[in-house]
């Protein structure tokens, strides 16, 4: 008697329906969003870059070889130092070549020539002391220069401060400005847009007109006027919060408008009606059914407005109206490169624009990816 064949694989009633899909049809929205987001290659790369940049924020002091204020009086406007591996034909590991300074007596410019002396780099080392987040003292760095050598990966500025260390410190400020600003704008947008969408009628009308009004005003002059109103005697940290609040105050209208229109559109959807008919409370409808629907859109559009804020801070600080030293942001650094001498003689002073461009691009692509993923069912 021939044996009856039985497929040993477990039987799934959904197998036919899910064939050809990467995920089962009843997969959660989050899983679907993740799947869709992964398809946007640039967005994934951008997300990775952003994660790396933001992950550096807690460890700023450890990454930067020098403190943000350390001046090297002997190395003013020194060009970036290259990292070498071979010394006199022999491999001795990563090291820098010591600079020798001469002054050109015709132009009075300092000229730095690498000498033959090799200064090997040290890793996971004790170097310059600092106060971690301005609180705990420490001196551990991931990378330090040789005891009597220097490490200027991106050159030095007019006071002989290491540009790389300053850019790393600027990252902490510049990247968080956008986050704090967007939080303020997000909360304002949710509340105002929600109120307009919920009450409708004349409240909605007034809010709508107000949104149009703010959106029609040029941002930068208003930012300038508002930040000029920040009292000079405020401490740098207060100025920092003042600037983020100003950036957030003018950004909410776009978000509020999105919340309002989503609110109005979703209220009429069938699934909301059926939820109501099944006796769901308004709170359950709002938080369980409405919020997940527009939250993803909202987060995506919020992500897209972070770069505007970062650029806004950069522009304000560049004009001298925003953050001021001793707080170091990318804009503050660029403020020092605001002359043609920098472009002509010390182009490395313009290097802070690289992280600015990289971050803005990354946020734009990441936001695009999120926006596509926010609607996983299309």
């Amino acid at each position, binding site marked *: 008697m021939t044996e009856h064949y039985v497929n040993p694989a477990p039987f799934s009633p959904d197998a036919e329906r899910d064939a050809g899909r990467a995920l089962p049809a009843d997969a959660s929205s989050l899983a679907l969003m993740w799947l869709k987001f992964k398809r946007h290659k640039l967005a994934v790369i951008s997300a990775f870059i952003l994660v790396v940049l933001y992950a550096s924020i807690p460890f700023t002091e450890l990454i930067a070889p020098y403190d943000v204020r350390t001046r090297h009086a002997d190395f003013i406007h020194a060009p970036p130092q290259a990292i070498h591996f071979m010394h006199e034909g022999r491999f001795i590991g990563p090291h820098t070549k010591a600079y020798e300074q001469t002054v050109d007596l015709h132009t009075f410019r300092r000229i730095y020539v690498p000498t033959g002396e090799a200064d090997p780099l040290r890793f996971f080392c004790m170097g310059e002391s600092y106060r971690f987040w301005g609180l705990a003292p420490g001196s551990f760095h991931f990378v330090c220069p040789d005891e009597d050598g220097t490490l200027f990966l991106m050159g030095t500025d007019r006071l002989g401060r290491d540009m790389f260390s300053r850019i790393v410190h600027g990252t902490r400020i510049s990247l968080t400005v956008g986050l704090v600003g967007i939080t303020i704008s997000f909360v304002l947008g949710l509340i105002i847009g929600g109120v307009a969408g919920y009450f409708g009628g004349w409240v909605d009308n007034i809010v709508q007109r107000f949104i149009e009004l703010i959106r029609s005003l*040029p941002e930068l*002059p208003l930012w300038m*006027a508002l930040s*000029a109103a920040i009292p000079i005697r405020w401490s740098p940290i207060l100025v920092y919060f003042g600037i983020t609040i100003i950036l957030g105050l003018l950004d909410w209208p776009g978000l509020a408008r999105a919340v309002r229109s989503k609110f109005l559109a979703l209220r009429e959807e069938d699934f909301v009606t059926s939820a109501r008919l099944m006796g769901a409370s308004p709170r359950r409808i709002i938080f369980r059914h409405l919020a997940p629907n527009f939250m993803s859109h909202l987060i995506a559009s919020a992500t897209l407005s972070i770069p505007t804020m970062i650029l806004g801070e*950069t522009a304000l600080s560049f004009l001298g*109206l925003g953050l001021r030293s001793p707080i170091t942001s990318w804009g503050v650094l660029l403020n020092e490169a605001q002359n043609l001498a920098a472009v002509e003689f010390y182009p490395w002073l313009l290097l802070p624009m690289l992280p600015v461009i990289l971050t803005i*691009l990354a946020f734009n692509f990441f936001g695009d990816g999120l926006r596509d993923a926010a609607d996983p069912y299309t």
Partner: protein
Amino acid sequence: MLRFTIERIMMMIPTLIAVSVLIFLIIELPEGDILSNRIDEMRASGEDAAIARVEALYEQYDLDEPLFTRYLIWVGAYPGNRGFSGLLQGDLGWSFTYERPVSEIVGEGIVLTVVLNLATVVFIYIVAFPIGVYSATRPYSVGDYGFTFLGYLGLATPNFLLGLILLYYFNRWFGVSIGGLMAPEYLGEPWTLSKFLSVMQHMVVPVIVIGTAGTAAMIRRLRANLLDELQKPYVTTARAKGMGETAALIKYPLRMALNPFIADIGNLLPSLVSGSVIVSLVLNLPTIGPVLLTSLQTQDIYLSGFILLFVAVLTLFGMLVSDLLLGWLDPRIRMDGEAPS
């Protein structure tokens, strides 16, 4: 069309009032005012004779009145110590730092600001239109990707830096003098062809710098719209019936995609004006940008207030023009709200 135009202009009046209130509040935000500061300074240095003069100014400009009254006086809807004399009467106020009427200071700068922004708008349309059409008709080609990349780069580079770098290279490659609006030898000279050419030369960098971000946005918008249109069945029908490629592009899809292209200028203008302010500062152009910065720093309220108001009115006016253009192009918009006959 006439009715639409009038309605649209009437709608601007409440907006203008709201804008002026908002701006007045913002410029009044910093504590203290320029004259009180100056009086304190003079008192500290013992210049009693000058104090009387400043106090007279203080009195004359009603700075001791409450906020709301001062607003009305500024606008010219309430008689101050100088009678009805405010924006409505054409009196723009007095600049306390320059010690001249505001109108004298901003006069030339305003013309230049308008010219600069107009030139940028023209630049954006001229550049964005062909590139947008090219990218939409040849999507995912090397050219399309190239322009998209350039556009993103333009969006991400801070305006002021781009200005600085372009200025340097224009000077190096083409010998255009650094900063300002014309070569130094033409300053104060009567208008000649070569002076005009020099001005045009100096406009190139600011126009490119201010226009890049806007151009990038426009290209993306036009490309997306045109792509959507080109995939519609009526285009296939037109092709199937033997219509030429160019005609099948220009006759209907392009016209449909043009609407948002024009409407978008309303969204674009605020950022253009913003851009022109900061770029003028970096490139040292005699627009109202640099004056705005100094007046904000010295709390010269009538000067900064008028400039902010002017900048806002410029964008509102731009939106008006784009709305009117749209109404003229698209009957659906101008008929909206009218009873169907």
